[in-house]
């Protein structure tokens, strides 16, 4: 069942907003209708087998980390970040997994959803039907981006959740040693893990906005996804070239690693705020670019 089918169903009719003032009062308020559209979009995303399989793959990394560390204890200073700390506190399984997955796996997952958002519908021909009902294209893009953002947050929280669950089961919790060498209790530690996860989820959502824009340019969802992944990898490469240091702070991926700043004492907010502002900037510009492209696009597919 596609969003187009849902949108054309009688219940979704109030989506048309132009005759709003002629509508009798017994109609549902507009806000309620727009959540319905978003919910149908989310049902599509999370209902697809391929997306469920993708989330399964994302969960493999924390499981592998947790199991390998039980088999052989890593030495400090070797292996991925936070790995050596796992034995002291299971929460580090989540952080270590995030630091591994943020370079490719999570951007790929968000890129798949974002690349599919418009191009996927165009490819299988449902976009035309979706637009045949008078859903305003601007609102369609807003709902699509909201769905991408929610998926991004859910996918990142999912990795953290699996990591925390596996870590606590195998290594237990307790006081968490921060990067600064201080210790915090379990409650604040879990709160910081959640904040770091949400921060990363929002960062990935900005990449999703770029994906949404690319998705309006093509009718091949796989092409849009590949483009997002290439941009992501390119950004990491540029970030590692010292001669381009003037460019680094503007790169979409530059502030992602700042999620570790939640685990300093006190929290180093500067980089995190810069990261959120950068993410918001990218999201705004590329959502507007998607709007500029999509509003007068001829939909033939």
């Amino acid at each position, binding site marked *: 069942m596609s969003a187009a089918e849902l949108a054309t169903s009688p219940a979704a009719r109030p989506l048309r907003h132009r005759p709003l003032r002629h509508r009798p009062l017994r109609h549902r308020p507009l806000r309620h209708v727009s959540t319905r559209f978003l919910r149908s979009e989310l049902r599509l995303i999370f209902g697809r087998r391929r997306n469920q399989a993708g989330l399964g793959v994302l969960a493999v990394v924390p499981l592998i980390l947790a199991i390998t560390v039980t088999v052989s204890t890593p030495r400090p200073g070797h292996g991925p970040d*936070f790995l050596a700390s796992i034995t002291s506190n299971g929460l580090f399984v989540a952080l270590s997994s995030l630091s591994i997955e943020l370079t490719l796996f999570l951007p790929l997952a968000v890129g798949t959803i974002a690349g599919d958002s418009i191009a996927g519908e165009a490819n299988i021909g449902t976009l035309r039907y979706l637009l045949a009902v008078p859903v305003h294209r601007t609102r369609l893009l807003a709902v699509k981006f909201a769905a991408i953002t929610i998926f991004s947050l859910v996918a990142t929280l999912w990795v953290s959740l699996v990591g925390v669950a596996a870590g606590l089961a195998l290594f237990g919790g307790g006081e968490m040693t921060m990067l600064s060498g201080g*210790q915090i209790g379990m409650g604040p530690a879990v709160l910081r893990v959640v904040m770091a996860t949400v921060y990363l989820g929002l960062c990935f959502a900005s990449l999703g906005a770029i994906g949404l824009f690319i998705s309006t340019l093509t009718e091949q969802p796989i092409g849009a996804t590949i483009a997002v992944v290439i941009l992501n990898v390119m950004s990491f490469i540029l970030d590692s070239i010292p001669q381009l*240091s003037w460019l680094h702070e503007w790169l979409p991926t530059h502030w992602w690693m700042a999620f570790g700043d939640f685990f300093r004492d006190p929290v180093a907010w500067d980089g995190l705020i810069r990261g959120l502002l950068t993410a918001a900037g990218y999201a705004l510009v590329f959502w507007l670019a998607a*709007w500029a492209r999509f*509003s007068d696009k001829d939909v033939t597919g």
Partner: protein
Amino acid sequence: MSIFERNPALRWAVPAVTAVALVGGGSAIRGVQAIADAGLPARTAAQLLVDVQQANLDGLSGTVVQRSDLGLPDLPIAGAAGGTGSSDLTSLVSGSHTMRIWFAGPDKARMALLGTLGESDVIRNGQDVWVWASKGKTATHYVLPAHDAEDKSATGKSGTSPDQSAVPTPTDLPTSPQDAAEKALAAITPSTEVTTSGTATVAGRSAYELVLKPKEATSLVAQVRVAIDGTEHVPLRVQVFAKSVADPVFEVAFSAVDFSRPDAAQFAFNPPPGTTVVEGKAMAGPGATDPTVNAPQPGSAGMPTVIGKGWGSVLVAKLPVPDASAATSGSTSATNDKTIAQLMKFATLLPKVSGSWGSGHLMAGTAFSALLTDDGRIVVGAVTPEGLYAALAAS
């Protein structure tokens, strides 16, 4: 929306204008800070030095960004492998680094070097000094001797104001701050032109700038600028400019600063469980800290000598010439020999130079020149290669 319906291409202006506004706005915030008129009353260099000496700093916390671009190639030796984003204390020689600093009196200070998902801390709390590295989960503990703590309190400020090392200080005990400032200025005037330049803005605060210009012709340093806070009289920024490039080759500056006294809990350090704790030997001070630095042992190499004075001074040290087997042998002193062997190997890639002083390989940076002679002497200075040759010929 009707404009967009008549002229759909105009829609593209919306994201374009937004992007330009965001990038421009982000850059402009810094630009405005740079040109803001600080509006401070004029002060002479001597008055500024008195201000700095009389500064009564209760406490501060802030973020310091340090950048260096000395124009040197990356050395393939241990300790120089850091670079940008590393929390390794030995990585400070290159790239850009962010530090957080807390200071609450001479015996309470903390410096945290922030790396990507890592951090190194140097914490002084009373007689205790801790050096913590998150990457290897190691903590080194030093206890300052009681009499040393006395000395520390005199120079303690330089532990937190990273810039004072660049300000020449008098060696004899002055009778008053004014006297000290006069003496300091008199000491450096033969070699340095000292001026104050208009006012600068650092970390959102108005600051005076003290400009030191070397008179030495062979010096590679064009000028050293020290920005001093207009109200708290604490150095906020030090920039070193080379003659060959417009941007500073070395800069350390507060990007944010707060002059309220930090909480005492900030200076408490207890090694967390699972930490390798090393009890360090008696130490010089929080500055010379990292135990992993391969400092040349006085016995293995000739003690370095300084030739020349002021800005033209050059450091000459004799390296022990290692035989080829030293690099691979597993003896305890092999680490130093290995480093030297690597350095020697690296030096052969550098341009070869020769003169009346002999021959060797030259590494010419924007702010430093280094020469490794074929007879195993290493000569380093903030001077032109000609300055190095002259120093060698004179030795």
